[in-house]
C-alpha cells in the first residue's frame, strides 16, 4: 500500500489523455451519428448507399485494425502522419459514429408516422418537420442506447495504448507494472476504479439529459431495459 500515492500519480498523469480521447471521441461520434443517421434516411439511393458503406465498413472490421490502419497505413497513402492522440480520437469517433448512426436512424423511424402527418397538416417544411417535431421526440428514444455507446467508447479508449498514447491503461502497463510489479492487484484495482468512475460520470450526465428530454415531452423518464438494445462494439 505504501506505493499507492505513486501509483495514483502515474495514473493521474494518464487521466487527461483518457478524458480528452473519450470526450473528443464522443463529440465526433455525436456529429457522425446524426450526420450518417440522417443520411441513411435520405430519399436518394446513392446517398444511402455511400453512407451504408461507411456504417458497415466500420461496424464490420475490428477497431484495432482501424486504429493501425489510420496510424500506420494512412500516412503512407497521404504522406501525413497524425499525432497518436488525434488518430485515436478519429478512430473512436468513426467507429462509434457508425454504431450511433443506426441508433439515430432507428430512433427517428420509431417516431409515429402520425407525427409527420400532423406536421405536414401544419404546412411545416421538411427541415422544420425534422428539427421541430421529429428529432425532439426521437432524442428521448436514442439517449439510453447512446449512453451505452459512450461507455463502450470510454472502454475502447484504452486501445490507444497500442499506438503509444500515454493514457491510463498504457501508464499502468508501461510504467507501473515494470516498476511496482509486486503491487499488481493494487495497480489494477485502481485502474478499474478509474474506469468505473468515468463510466459513472457519463451515465450521470446522460441520465440528466434523459430527464430533461423526457420533461420536454411531458413524460416521466422511462428507463428501458438496456440489454436488448445494447450496441456491442
Amino acid at each position, binding site marked *: 500500500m505504501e506505493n499507492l500515492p505513486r501509483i495514483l500519480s502515474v495514473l493521474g498523469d494518464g487521466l487527461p489523455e483518457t478524458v480528452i480521447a473519450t470526450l473528443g471521441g464522443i463529440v465526433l461520434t455525436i456529429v457522425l451519428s446524426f450526420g450518417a443517421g440522417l443520411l441513411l434516411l435520405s430519399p436518394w439511393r446513392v446517398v444511402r448507399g455511400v453512407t451504408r458503406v461507411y456504417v*458497415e465498413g466500420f461496424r464490420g472490421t475490428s477497431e484495432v485494425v482501424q486504429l493501425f490502419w489510420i496510424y500506420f497505413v494512412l500516412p503512407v497513402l497521404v504522406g501525413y502522419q497524425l499525432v497518436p492522440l488525434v488518430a485515436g480520437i478519429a478512430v473512436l469517433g468513426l467507429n462509434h459514429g457508425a454504431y450511433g448512426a443506426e441508433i439515430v436512424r432507428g430512433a427517428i423511424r420509431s417516431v409515429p408516422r402520425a407525427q409527420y402527418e400532423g406536421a405536414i397538416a401544419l404546412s411545416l417544411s421538411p427541415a422544420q418537420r425534422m428539427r421541430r417535431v421529429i428529432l425532439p421526440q426521437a432524442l428521448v428514444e436514442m439517449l439510453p442506447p447512446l449512453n451505452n455507446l459512450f461507455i463502450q467508447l470510454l472502454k475502447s479508449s484504452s486501445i490507444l495504448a497500442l499506438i503509444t498514447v500515454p493514457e491510463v491503461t498504457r501508464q499502468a502497463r508501461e510504467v507501473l507494472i515494470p516498476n511496482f510489479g509486486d503491487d499488481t492487484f493494487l495497480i489494477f484495482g485502481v485502474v478499474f476504479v478509474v474506469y468505473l468512475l468515468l463510466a459513472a460520470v457519463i451515465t450521470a450526465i446522460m441520465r440528466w439529459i434523459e430527464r430533461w428530454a423526457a420533461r420536454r415531452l411531458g413524460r416521466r423518464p422511462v428507463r428501458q431495459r438496456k440489454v*436488448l438494445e445494447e450496441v456491442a462494439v
Partner: protein
Amino acid sequence: MPLWDWSYAFSILPDLLLALVTTIEITVLGSVVALLLGLVIAVLRRARIPVLDQVLWAFVELVRSTPLLVQVFFLFFALPRFGIELSAFVIGVLALGVHYATYTSEVYRAGIDAVPQGQWEAATALSLPRSRVWTGVVLPQAIPRVLPALGNYVISMFKEVPLLLAIGVVEVVNEARELGSETFRYVEPYTIAGVLFLLLSYPASLLVRRLERRRVSA
C-alpha cells in the same frame, strides 16, 4: 514503388490466413465460455440467493464497465502470482469469454424475464422439478428469443480478438504487424487484415439480422 503491390499482397496472404485460423479458434472457444458462463450467471441471479446475488451483480457491472484490454493485462500479470501459468492464447480465451459472459448473462436474463409468469405457474402446477422447469419449459422459450442478440456478441468477440496482440497472441493483426516490420510495408498487411474481418463479420451480421427479422415476424 507502388502504393499497392499485388505480388507482395499474395505472398503474405497464406500467413495472414493462418493467423485468421487462430483468431477464429479464440472466437469459438471464447464464445463457448461466454455462452455457458453467461447462462450460469443468469440462472443463478434469477434464484436471488442473498450475498451471491449482490456479488454477481457487482462482478457483472465491474467487468462490463471496464476495458477488456485492462482485464487482459490483469489476467496476464495477476494469474502467475497465484502460480497459475497459462499461455497467452488461453488467457485470451478466458478474458474474452468472461468479459462477454457478463453481456450474455444480461441477454439471457432479458429472455428469461420475457417468458410469461403463467409458464412458471403452469410448470409449478404440474409439480415439475426445478431443473425440469428450466430445461424443459423456460430455457427452450427464452433462448430462441435471444439468439440474434447472442449472435451479435459472438461477432463482437471476433472483432475484439486483435486486442490480444498486446499480450503477444499471434492473431491476424499481430501477424500483419510482424509481416510489415520485416519489409517496412504496412499498406498491404493491415488492409488485407481489415478485409478479412469484413469478409467474415459482415455476412455473419447479415445472417443475424435475418434471424432477427424472422423472430420479429414470427
